[in-house]
């Protein structure tokens, strides 16, 4: 199980599409690490990101973090909110790193217009590169729970056992966040977290 890399910095790359909650997921991871006493840096490129473009968020925590961006080939965990986006960024994983991928496809207009093809099987391509990929349909789980936006919490649940702190700590952070902002959504987010956790375990 990957915990921390050689330099004791944990690198988590969250990749997806503007509007999917990539930044929120990264924010929650960063806040949780901060609460655990780590030095944390988190970065992304915003601006155009909310217009359906590629968005990645880098979360780094450890004793002392200097440069904010994860160097290619050094990510411990890749959280892919969309399979083609996971494939796009998979070379950022270090050898032995883990990719946690939602298989819910979201094709951009340029694919729908027939200008480009969607890869046949992004997850298989990643596996062919020797990457430890865990893939499941987080979108379907979120929809079954009644709200597509829950994908975020589902994915966090899925990676919770790969972190250097316990899944319960991450869950508490998420639920506290909703308790403060949208108390009605605490219960459903707890279900989403647990569903993500189970889905990841079932896959491995």
């Amino acid at each position, binding site marked *: 199980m990957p915990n921390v890399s050689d330099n004791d910095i944990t690198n988590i790359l969250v990749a997806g*599409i*503007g509007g999917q909650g990539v930044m929120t997921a990264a*924010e929650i991871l*960063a806040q949780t690490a*901060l609460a655990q006493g780590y*030095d*944390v*840096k*988190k*970065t*992304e*490129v*915003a*601006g*155009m*990101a*909310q*217009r*359906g*473009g*590629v968005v990645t968020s880098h979360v780094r925590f450890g004793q002392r*973090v*200097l*440069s*904010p*961006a994860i*160097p*290619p*080939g050094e990510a411990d965990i890749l959280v892919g909110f969309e399979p*083609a*986006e996971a*494939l*796009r*960024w*998979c*070379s*950022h994983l270090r050898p032995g790193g883990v990719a946690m991928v939602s298989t819910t496809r979201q*094709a*951009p*207009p*340029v*694919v*729908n*217009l*027939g*200008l*480009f*093809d*969607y*890869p046949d099987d*992004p997850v298989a*391509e990643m596996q062919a590169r020797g990457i430890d990929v865990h893939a499941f349909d987080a979108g379907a789980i979120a929809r079954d729970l*009644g*709200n*597509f936006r829950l994908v975020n919490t589902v994915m966090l649940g899925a990676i919770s056992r790969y972190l250097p702190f316990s899944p319960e700590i991450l869950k508490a952070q998420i639920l506290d966040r909703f308790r403060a902002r949208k108390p009605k959504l605490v219960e459903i987010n707890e279900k989403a977290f647990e569903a993500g956790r189970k889905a990841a375990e079932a896959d491995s």
Partner: protein
Amino acid sequence: MSGNEAVALGAWTAGCRVAAAYPGTPSTEILEYASQHRDMYTEWSINEKVSLEVAIGASLAGSRALCAMKHVGLNVASDALMTQTLVGVKGGLVIAVADDVGLSSSQNEQDSRHWGRFAHVPVLEPADAQEAHDMTITAFDLSERFGTPVILRLTTRVCHVKGVVVPAGERQEHVLPGGFEKNPARLVMTPANARHRIPLMYQREEELRRYSGECELNRITEGDDRRIGFVASGPAFMHVREAFPDAPVLKLGLSHPAPMEQIRQLAGQVEQLVVVEEVEPILETEIKAAGIDVVGKEILPRIGELAPHVLRPAIAGLLGEPVTEEPATAPAAPPAKAPEVKLDPATGIQVFPRPPTMCVACPHLGIYYCLSKIKNTSISGDIGCYTLGAGEPWNALDTTICMGASMGVALGLDKGRTEEDRDKKIIAVIGDSTFMHMGMQGLLDITYNRGNVTILLLDNRAVGMTGGQFNPASGRDIHGEEAMQVDFRRICEALGVKSERIHEVNPYELPVLFKALREEIKIPEPSVIITNQPCVLVEFYGARPALTVDAEKCTGCGNCLDVGCPAIFVTRRETVVKPNGKEKELAFVDIDTAACTGCDLCPRTCGPDAIVPLEGFSRQ
């Protein structure tokens, strides 16, 4: 917190009383956070020049003042800056300018440190959020101590990086005594007065140069590996420290004026000196001019962001060590319209590009649908979400230069047209915010000089591209409170457009929009078509029940795909042979009902009426 939030907090702590900005990535959040401190006056200004002028006035009135902008904003504000540097300040005046290194959301890449040299004002360069906070406070102190505006130079990797920040503490109450003091010899920059201020400016710069050599902002982090010593500023310092933890580094917090003696000293203590800066070789040129042997952009990239994995191979090469191939940072997306996706050579990964798109139900979609169907046009565009109209599927925007340029460029396309373009229809597309920022003057130039231009003024009542900030078109101020709402029809009339040449249309009413456009491009005088539906990102946008596709009725014509709405997707493709023997590609579609807001635009492009309201729809 992010670097932007840290700047806002630092300004508040330093007792800043007035803060003004025009939104622009990556600087926007500075004023958003500043506005949460209600004991500080904050405003969205109409453009960066006005924001700087407001800050100048506040400074002269005895208050500390901040203005924030992106790099291209300082081009606009530079007219004020270049004379303000002669006047100097009373209350501390800080200009926070954020460079979009790597062009995530800008029309160019600029190095704002040039302005420090050009205007002879000091430049501070924080490396992370903590420093952004601390240096903002320092900037106000320096400003008052030396009587100069101070540039706080940020980059995306400071603005948008969240890190741990320990705040300095309570807000200082800081007001300079005496209020606004009349002093024409200093404040009225006629030639006679300005002439006397220039030597004072140079004298100030020399004092700052001495200070730069002594201050804590410029310091050496010692290291045992003396093969290479580094000079670095801003986030580049962090990259150097991460990549070469054992090398000595001179970190320049105050990078202009640069502490040349300190640099010379370090050069004498190491085998080779390397300067690492984003993004132009500014320090490098100055260091070389001082006769110090230094390596810089010979081995480091001159565009885009630096990072440890960019530095390592470059330095290994310099040391004559084997260069291990490092994977590329971001897989480069192939240009649109490429027949097939090219392999990324560095990673061997093959994925389609995912360029930014307009939002689901964006009021601009209908405009570009119409523009893409009109032939024989030249369309000058502007800066905003609607710049995306240059992309697929519309390809209906031909130029983008800078804020407001659509107006003047359109007039120039008209006046400079050659025989080949005799019948070309000249159209300009500009958003509400950009029009108020710098477009109104251009429109006046069009009317005054009898230009033949049809102007599409896309009023979505917000600054869309930066996240929907309020502006005078919203009728709300920076706090979301009621403010005056601008009347574009009356502005256009006042700028000389005939009343009958101004149309206000709902951009979702495709036939009405199309008719107005068709008619106005035929008339050889300036006309303005104002669209009046709000940005989908603002709170007063009202979503309606979602739409869906009746699969039995869909004929696969693909017309709705030309709208370019990201909620419409293809379910299957089919090739059929028409009676005339030609092959035709069919694309059957469906709608992502979770994303659709029922704007009712796409049904108007659907011949067989296959796009229908979703039964039993409820929005969560």
